[in-house]
């Protein structure tokens, strides 16, 4: 089932959470809504779920072309998973998962044994079949979130909405669970939107990433598209580390060869990822931006170097392999030359 949100506006008092946002999600996709806190991503998700309403007179929500703007949350057939699980604390895991079936009207309600069957099937799907009799407080965070997912799936939703589903978990569990979610998505193939502020998470498991900032959608694309071709400085900076060079420093270093020619604007800023910076030992006459090595952080597969530009004393971060680092044989405070393999600048937006 595809999801469309058209021109959604939402204000809380004088605060604008969403200013005319459009979103289209194709059927069966796994889409990440990515953005910093306060960008409006959770509000958009809650409006899609029907837990929040867009401002009167603003846009519509459509599921598979059908308008559901005025349909209450309980009738939209959405599965919603909350950041803090929101499991019913006084019910066992089994009762939690069965809840959505038990509250149905008598003629729609499955029989007792059907409910038990379905709940057990779901507990198996989330790999927690032995924990049906436990209470939520007896489970770990990762287990709770999987139960929350099973509970949401029990009502056979048409779309699955997850609000920062792994936000409250520690790093290792988070990584495991997001791979598991990806696998689950391939099994059940439900149109899924999940909200996250973790770019790594979004890029790793989503088919499509929607990047939001300040109540607007900044860019939509596959993880590779948004990472390789960010459409704005914000997206560039939000997806991974980035160095910002003033154009003058580049001009001084050479004839603009270090950035894509023709894209530079006067007084513009040039964005370079740390792994797109090559480092060479300093030789007089050679091309490059002179810099001094200030700090080496070599834990992990890549070495992260902090360098200070000689020209303007601004700091630059570069990432090279540890083999390369050894090969260069650098010491702290050595003078080196920086070369930019790939750089990007953006036309300044003069519109007010």
């Amino acid at each position, binding site marked *: 089932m595809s999801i469309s949100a058209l021109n959604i506006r939402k204000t809380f008092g004088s605060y604008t959470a969403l200013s005319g946002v459009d979103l289209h999600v194709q059927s069966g996709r796994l889409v990440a809504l990515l953005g910093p806190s306060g960008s409006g991503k959770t509000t958009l998700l809650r409006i899609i779920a029907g837990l929040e309403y867009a401002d009167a007179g603003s846009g519509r929500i459509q599921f598979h072309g059908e308008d559901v703007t005025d349909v209450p949350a309980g009738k939209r057939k959405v599965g919603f998973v909350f950041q803090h699980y929101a499991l019913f604390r006084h019910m066992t895991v089994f009762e939690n998962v069965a*809840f959505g079936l038990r509250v149905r009207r008598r003629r729609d309600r499955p029989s007792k044994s059907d409910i038990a069957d379905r709940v057990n099937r779901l507990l198996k799907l989330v790999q927690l079949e032995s924990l049906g009799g436990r209470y939520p407080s007896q489970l770990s965070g990762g287990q709770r979130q999987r139960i*929350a997912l099973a509970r949401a799936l029990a009502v056979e939703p048409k779309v699955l909405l997850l609000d920062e589903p792994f936000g409250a978990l520690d790093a290792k569990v988070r990584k495991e669970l997001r791979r598991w979610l990806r696998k689950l998505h391939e099994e059940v193939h439900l149109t899924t939107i999940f909200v996250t502020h973790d770019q790594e998470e979004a890029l790793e498991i989503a088919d499509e990433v929607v990047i939001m900032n300040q109540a607007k959608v900044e860019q939509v694309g596959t993880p590779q598209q948004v990472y390789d071709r960010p459409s704005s400085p914000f997206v560039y900076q939000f997806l991974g580390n980035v160095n910002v060079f003033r154009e003058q420093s580049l001009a001084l270093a050479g004839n603009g060869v270090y950035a894509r020619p023709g894209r530079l604007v006067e007084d513009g800023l040039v964005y370079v990822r740390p792994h797109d910076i090559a480092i060479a030992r300093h030789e007089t006459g050679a091309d490059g931006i002179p810099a001094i090595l200030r700090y080496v952080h070599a834990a992990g597969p890549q070495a992260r170097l902090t360098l200070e530009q000689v020209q303007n004393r601004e700091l630059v971060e570069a990432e090279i392999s540890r083999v390369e680092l050894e090969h260069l044989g650098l010491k702290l405070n050595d003078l080196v030359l920086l070369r930019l393999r790939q750089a990007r600048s953006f036309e300044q937006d003069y519109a007010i």
Partner: protein
Amino acid sequence: MAGPATSLAGKPARTGAGTPRVIRNPLWVRVVFMTVALLFLGCFLLLPLAAVFAEALRKGVGAYFHSFADPDVHSAIWLTLLTAAIAVPANLVFGVAAAWCIAKYDFRGKSLLVTFIDLPFAVSPVISGLIYMLIFGLQGWLGPYLGSGDHPWFGEWFNQQDIKIVFAVPGIVLATIFVTFPFVARELIPLMQTQGNDEEYAALTLGASGWQTFWRVTLPNIKWGLFYGVILCNARAMGEFGAVSVISGKIRGETTTMPLQVEILYNENNSVAAFAVASLLALLALVTLVLKSFIEWRHAQTRPSA
């Protein structure tokens, strides 16, 4: 005596989370504080309580039980139970409704409502009684329209009903409701606020109606807090003196509740009977305390972590 012996560091082995050494005080400080606390407790709480029972039983068990044979005492007990039976459920419904509004929704004037809920705690009970006199009394604002008579505002039927509020049971009930107003709401508001709305939202997305959400999710989550609020409310409803004393008119056998009956009997130098009735109220207090501890214990049991 449970637990392992003293460890090498000289830290006393205590069960559970023993007080860390750094924040423990010298022995003499602890002894002094403990003695002061126990003396205070003994003089101001235990001694009076013991005195109530001692006085009540001064002339023997027979005289004690004989005190309850008095029809006025019967009617006082009956009236107290009746008042509590009306006031407690009324405040239960009000308290849940108010806590629900305040904890789950944002609206204009919310803080004003919270302040008003506390009003009965801030006002002296005597004033509460006087307020009702002022409103419903014969010389009051609404009083003249309530008794039988010929008033243009109301229809013929209403004028013939002869509704009595002041110096009658309805007044006592109203004053009691007013005084015990905050107990349930006060208990539930912080509880519901910490629990947040997520579980209700979850129930909603799973297709539950508002009514189902309330009975299956909200109410089970607050049941111990609610029970706690209700027993405190009940204790106060049965023990209320000031407000009821003003509005009841203390008509013997008709508008005296137990606390008023105690005063009447004592003023008549019938101290055994006075203390016998008082001992019932004291017993009620003890039962309340036991229930309260039980609820606190249960509450800690049902929420191991969360």
